[in-house]
């Protein structure tokens, strides 16, 4: 590319800030990189691909059917509760109770099946009913002004205690009559992964292509401004809390079918923390207003690949925790840095 055309193509606002190599104008490669990095999910996709190739080349059996199924099964339930966490974090809230709802849901389903409902109906009713927990979370947070971190800590413990009480903290088997349908709800190797991926796509559309998603971003990005524009901000927040609880209930039920047992030690805080790690690695910001479902899916994929790869190489799960922690920090630093670049206009501000 000649000097002349470079100069002609430079827009006025890039002239001032450019110095050093950048002043020579973008090469096609640089420009392609800039377009790529403009996509929020780009960096995490890159990391996922690199890790995948690394393990595929260096680790025996990583690129085998069994290993891929393990990755898919690992990431699926965290992805499902992560969807809710992304919605909430985009609108500026958080939910610590998802792991306890996860624990409670299969017991509730079991109760409905015991009372004679067909399994499918029992699942649907459980998922719908447990959205009440989200309603309480949202109501207390918006109407009483309690920070959602505290609200959901409180409701989380209540749900936990309730689940342990009604189950007497005992394992129970999946009801016999439910086993057939269970194949569709987590028991078959790929079913939970398919649920997670389809839900990610649906909620991606919800977040980026519908009024609800636009308002969710607005509420998290500028609460007062959203209210001034006439958006019913409490309704948006409460709705997102309700969806989050329902998703957590679904994840809990799918996991129970997958493990073929309803277990009082399921869910709890560890699943919340892993999901949160995936959400953050996927590029969702804590301060509200931005987040992506595709990024979440990729973030979970990264966690799944790391977990599986380390496992196959015989590295203990203790060391995996260190990697997980480092990944969270690196992702957050990269995210903050990219956001700063974006708002300075260095990467352009346009979104697809």
């Amino acid at each position, binding site marked *: 590319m000649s000097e002349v055309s470079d100069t002609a193509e430079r827009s006025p606002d890039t002239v001032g800030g450019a110095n050093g190599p950048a002043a020579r104008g973008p090469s096609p490669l640089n420009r392609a990189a800039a377009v790529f990095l403009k996509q929020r999910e780009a960096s995490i996709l890159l990391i996922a691909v690199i890790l995948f190739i690394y393990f595929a080349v260096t680790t025996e059996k990583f690129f085998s059917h069994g290993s891929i199924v393990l990755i898919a099964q690992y990431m699926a339930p965290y992805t499902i509760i992560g969807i809710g966490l992304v919605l909430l974090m985009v609108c500026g809230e958080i939910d610590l109770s998802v792991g306890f709802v996860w624990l409670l849901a299969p017991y509730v389903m079991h109760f409905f099946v015991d009372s004679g409902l067909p399994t499918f109906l029992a699942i649907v009713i459980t998922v719908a009913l447990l959205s009440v927990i989200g309603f309480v979370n949202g109501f207390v947070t918006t109407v009483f002004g309690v920070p959602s971190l505290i609200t959901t800590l409180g409701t989380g413990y209540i749900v936990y205690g309730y689940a342990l009480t009604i189950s007497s903290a005992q394992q129970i088997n999946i009801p016999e009559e439910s086993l057939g349908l269970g194949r569709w709800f987590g028991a078959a190797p790929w079913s939970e992964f398919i649920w997670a991926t389809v839900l990610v796509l649906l909620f991606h559309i919800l977040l980026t292509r519908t*009024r609800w998603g636009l308002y969710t971003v*607005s509420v998290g990005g500028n609460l007062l*401004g959203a209210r001034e524009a006439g958006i019913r901000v409490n309704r948006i927040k409460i709705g997102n809390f309700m969806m989050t609880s329902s998703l957590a209930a679904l994840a809990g039920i799918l996991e129970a079918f997958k493990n073929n047992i309803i277990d009082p030690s399921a869910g709890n805080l560890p699943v919340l923390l892993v999901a949160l790690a995936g959400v953050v690695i996927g590029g969702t910001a804590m301060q509200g207003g931005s987040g992506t479902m595709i990024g979440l899916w990729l973030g979970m994929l990264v966690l799944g690949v790391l977990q599986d790869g380390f496992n196959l190489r015989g590295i203990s799960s203790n060391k995996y925790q260190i990697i997980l922690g480092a990944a969270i920090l690196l992702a957050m630093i990269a995210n903050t840095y990219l956001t700063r670049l974006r708002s300075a*206009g260095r990467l352009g501000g346009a979104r697809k």
Partner: protein
Amino acid sequence: MSLDEHSSVSLDPAGQHDDILRCEHIAKRYGAVTALVDVNLRLERGEVLGLIGDNGAGKSTLLKTICGFQPPTSGRIVLNGEEVHFSSVTQARAAGIDIVYQDLALVNQLTVYQNMFLNREMVRWPLLRNRAMRKQAKEQLDSIGISTLKSVDLEVASLSGGQRQAIAVARSVFSDAKVLLLDEPLAAMGVKEGAAILDLVRDLKQQGISIIIIAHNYGQVFPVCDRVNLLQGGKITFDKYSRDTSVEELTEIVVSEYRKALAERHRNASGTITGS
């Protein structure tokens, strides 16, 4: 001119004017704080009313009460001769009242066109009609000629203060409002952009839209105003047609109020000293 002559402006009891909007005895209290005491304000059909007053006089509070953002504590709002109670901004907008807020109410993380259509999106259920909104936003910004934007796909966070203000003004201009409330529409604007906004105000007036405009630099908006009201101590204390007053007189009134308060404080201070 002494202020006492104007200490209470009453609403045209004879009804000789064609008012599109009247605020009657509006009061607004937040807990112990009284922002508006007793506001009587009228807006004639097709006029531009300048609302001036010092910082904290309650100008923004008054506009937010009219536009449905918050209800008045007491008093009536009358639109086209009928008393109205708005429980939301959306309702007021449906009745033909729209506002540009002082803080602009833009969402940084959304694009220009998404902000322009915020809470009035074009939808083919359940999806947003992004392409149609993008196209229309572009046309609207071009038609008012106040924008130096390269694209309506830019995130608002990356724009200058003047550009942000242009977007906030543009979105209420194209809302089919009959009454438009502009709270400091020139605050972040350069001279050229400011002049374009004032031209726009004149255009809107030509189209029969009635406008209330708050500007802290009232000399700048005075040429487009038909009438000026002064809000002081939670009341309208001055109401004159522009042809009967001048920027100098307005300055004189605002400053004399300040001097009076200062003198009062001095008197009180010396009173305390003599007393003790």
